[in-house]
């Protein structure tokens, strides 16, 4: 069975309509879930991230990071993506799902057929034979095109799969550039501060190089 075709592997029992509820634990629970093919999960690893954070993280992680974790939504986050992001999804594929934030939404006027075609194309181009994938529409909301991939080398109990959704009607996040600008400023400030602090150690070396090149 080729890449991009609909597969009927060990995860095929998950119907498209059932896929989203199953995947609806972003940020809440461990990625491990059982497929309905009878495989079992290791219960030892089924620890809620939020429980973990509430008990241990405040003591270990700086307050800012903890604030981010604590405020993670308990409901499923649905982000959007474009087909080009599919490659990145596959490269990091190891968990049950990946939600991908979008930067470049498909234009509103783009037809769903085009979205489906583009997604299929991206999956065929960027997938390796290790992944079996398919594209389908969610029956409940046909405007959503979903691509799923499964890592055939992972054991069935891990249910590795990946989802990319295309929802052209949702708006672009206006704060994205602001956040990125803040990150860049922070990184630049840290770099400058660090090298300024280390300048007394670097300067003798620079001086040595200059002296040698001068002579």
């Amino acid at each position, binding site marked *: 069975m080729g890449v991009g075709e609909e597969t009927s592997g060990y995860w095929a029992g998950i119907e498209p309509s059932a896929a989203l509820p199953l995947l609806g634990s*972003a*940020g809440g*629970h*461990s*990625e491990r879930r059982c497929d309905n093919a009878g495989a079992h999960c*290791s*219960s*030892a*690893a089924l*620890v809620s*991230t939020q429980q*973990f*954070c509430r*008990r*241990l993280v405040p003591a*270990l*992680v*700086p307050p800012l*990071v903890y604030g*981010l*974790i604590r405020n*993670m939504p308990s409901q499923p*986050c649905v982000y959007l*993506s474009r087909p080009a*992001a599919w490659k*990145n999804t596959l*490269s*990091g594929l*190891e*968990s049950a799902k*990946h*939600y*991908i*934030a*979008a*930067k*470049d939404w498909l234009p509103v006027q783009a037809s769903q057929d085009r979205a489906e075609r583009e997604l299929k194309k991206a999956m065929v181009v960027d997938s390796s034979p290790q992944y079996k994938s398919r594209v389908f529409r969610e029956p409940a909301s046909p405007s959503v095109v979903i691509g799923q991939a499964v890592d055939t080398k*992972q*054991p069935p109990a*891990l249910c590795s799969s990946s989802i990319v959704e295309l929802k052209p009607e949702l708006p672009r996040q206006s704060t*994205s*550039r602001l*956040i*990125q*600008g*803040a*990150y*860049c400023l*922070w*990184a630049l400030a*840290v*770099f400058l501060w*660090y090298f300024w*602090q*280390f300048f007394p*150690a670097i300067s*003798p*070396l620079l001086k*040595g*190089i200059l002296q040698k090149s001068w002579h």
Partner: protein
Amino acid sequence: MALIQAGLILVAVCAFLLAAASLGNLILRILHLEMDTDAQQLVICAGVGVIAIEMLLFGVALTQQIRKGCFVVVGLLCVLLLAEFKSLTPRCSQSIKVVFPGSRADRFLILIIGITLGIEFLISLAPLTGSDALHYHFTTQKLILEYGFHPDFSISNSFFCGQHHLLILFGLALGSEKLAMGLIFLGGILTVFSLACLASRWSSSRTTSAITLLFLLTPVVFWQISSSGAPDIWMAFFTSAAVMVLCQNKISGTWRQALLAGLLAGGVVGAKYTGCLVAVALATAIAAEYRSMQSTLLLGAGSLLTGIWPYLRNLVWTGDPVFPFFSTMLIPERVNFFALNAIRADTGASNSSHWVEFVPFVFFAGMRQGSLGFWDFFGPIVFALAPLWSASVGHFHKWRVAAVVWCVSAVAVFYASGLPRFLLPVFPLALAFTAAGLDSSQQKGWRIANRFAWGLVILLWIFGGVGLAMYSWKPVATALGIVREVNYLEERRPEYQEAEVINRVLASQTKGGKTLLFIRHTYSLDAPFLNGDPATSWMINPDRLRTPQDWTILFQKEGITFVARSPDYPEAIEAPLMEMEAKGDLIPLAQSVVRDFQGMRIDGKRAEIPVIVLRVKSAIETQGDH
């Protein structure tokens, strides 16, 4: 000739690696343990194998038949290698296929990594110049080979030698300082592999390669891997390997996983006292992840099994397992407060760090303005890109084991020591997070932030690459035989010329016992000696050596015949020794002037330093009586 020698060392190191992996493979098969991928299986096998070999070497050292014992260990490893070779070969070929991905850019990165490793290997083959290595990492092993496995209170730091120093002992016992350096380099190679395995769990192959290259070009890392002569890089490997085991899916939550992680944690515990802090962090991580007392206890038991040996040795030799830090409580009658305070200051134990320094320290951007140097230079990348992790905060559950190990270790090291370089064991974990942050920003579509971050990574590559080129050209030229070793030693090895003068003078003396001297880098000395610097010698207690009579008793007790100073005595013991010189109890024998570093070697300042060798008069009289 030099190239042939380098090739032989490379073959020997590779053979050692394969033999260690064979031994580890056997142990993992007995424990029915299988990692998620072949590459991870090989790395873990090598780690378990190395720690098992070190336990064997510890047993060999106890027998006092060290050279013979080391050759027996070599024979045993050859047998194991032959027995397990068939089992290892498919895993090796599979792992190599994974390492060489399809894209041209990825292959180019792999090529650059290979070149960097090659350069660092050649640096490691140059003669030893690391200050601490010349003081105790190599000197202690050399003295053990010459005089047996006994405590040496003349070098206080000799009690800091851990499990991985046995690899240096192994190399020296087989007759090669270069092999000993090669075994330290091997620790670097395995750390690189374990970093790549960890990072590839959370990021793409390209980002993994990029971060691996950044690791190799970080000054503190290439110094530790290549020329420092300290085996601390093995701690980074064992920490990453233990975290890798705790992140496995196939064996998740099993007792075998906890035991294996513990065995590897022992490689960190037994390396250095601060390794205990990392082991506590690993125990915290497993307790938090699996909420199982049994798993936590198994991890503790495993780490004790493989890492307790240096602590037992110290307990038997001194009465203090972490000598000399608990000596005031455990052996108050034998405390040398002068030496203890000097050691506490040197290791950062007595320094108090300001809370403002806490956050940069944890993110590897800490530095000590009092002694600024590249041995603390981890680069700003982890701190600068830390906010990018928020782009992938939804995947925190995948990272939490590594995050707990990193945070708990860093916090503990900050309060216990405050020396940034002691964070080296958890640096690969932080870089793996950085790789994940880079990819997450890309996946989230933050194109500007992602490109800026990549720009910073490239900038650090350039900085590190230039630094490596500047640092490496002389040792590489020496390793390749282009520069003569003597010239290199005169230029780079601290106190080499002083030691050579002392060697020359003492070689012409027909009779003689030990020489009391005050230089720090004693590795170059051929004659028996006693370190007289009260800051680094537990035997020299200024509180008890106040008069010439006290010194005369010490000279007689230790069989000291000569005293060498260059140029002055340490201030704390200067008065009685100068008095002995004035009285004629110490008779000048020879004097010479050499050029050597003044202050820190990194400053490059040189000065003319007189070296004076004196004969102890009472020793002449005693010899005359006999």
